[in-house]
């Protein structure tokens, strides 16, 4: 956790974008470790593969297209700083009201989770509960998610391809 804080601070201070990209990859790996420690192995795997792997490569690809030094902002960004600080403060205040981590009496653990855990054996019979919830109980959500990924890809295709065609003639 403290290593994550250090890497975030260095990312904020640094003006060399290459270093920033590498550091954000390191941050993703640290985040994946934290998720493993919290027993969320599926999420940790995604974080390590997407956050540290693919997005680092994509950011490096983007960096290839522009300068590797961050430009100095024309004026001090006090208003955005104020907005982000207040939003962050509100979020931290919100987390104070959350039940403690791994509290068995927390609302999410007493609503539908007992049903998933107890009846999944007869209904779905898949050892990994995450997969059962993701693909079966919450099938509609995952369908929406897949459609979102598809739409994002289609958007990128639409944006970048037109640009290239316009440049050719």
């Amino acid at each position, binding site marked *: 956790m403290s290593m994550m804080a250090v890497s975030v601070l260095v990312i904020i201070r640094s003006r060399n974008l290459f270093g920033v990209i590498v550091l954000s990859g390191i941050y993703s790996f640290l985040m994946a470790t934290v998720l493993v420690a919290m027993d969320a192995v599926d999420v940790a795997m995604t974080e390590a593969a997407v956050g540290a792997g693919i997005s680092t490569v*994509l950011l490096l690809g983007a960096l290839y297209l522009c300068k590797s030094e961050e430009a100095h902002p024309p004026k001090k960004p006090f208003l955005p700083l104020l907005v982000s600080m207040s939003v962050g403060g509100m979020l931290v205040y919100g987390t104070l009201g959350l039940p403690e981590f791994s509290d068995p009496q927390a609302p999410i653990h007493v609503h539908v989770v007992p049903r998933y855990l107890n009846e999944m054996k007869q*209904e779905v019979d*898949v050892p990994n509960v*995450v997969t059962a919830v993701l*693909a079966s109980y919450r099938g509609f959500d995952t369908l929406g998610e897949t459609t979102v990924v598809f739409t994002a890809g289609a958007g990128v295709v639409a944006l*970048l391809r037109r640009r*290239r065609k316009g440049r050719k003639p």
Partner: protein
Amino acid sequence: MKNDLILRVIAKLLIPFILLFALYVQFHGDFGPGGGFQAGVILAAAVIFYALIYGLADARKVVPEPLVESMMAIGVLIYAGVGVAGLLLGGNYLDYFVLDPNPVRGQHRGIFWVEVGVATTVSGVMLKIFYMFADRGKVDEE
């Protein structure tokens, strides 16, 4: 990087294992951590790795762009098709119980195809975005 012998040999050694691991994550997602999304990303990462070491043109030969583009759509269609198959067999949309005479087997079958759909779309989109970005650099260079 195209002429670096060490990188080429190591990549050649590693890529089969990355692909195998992607398949393992895909089909073992029912038992251990993993599933369609992670498998799709790892699959895309293997091809991106190949493209980084051997160059984009070679990667395009292995995984041609029309294939990648159709993968994006086919994945969603597989997923939605599982739902429609449930409808045709007399259940609700995305109801896996009717996919097999044995309801539990039906669930297994439904989850399997849904995960295949997710993996196909995710790897297609990741690869397409990577191709697009890498291509932009080349166009600017010329």
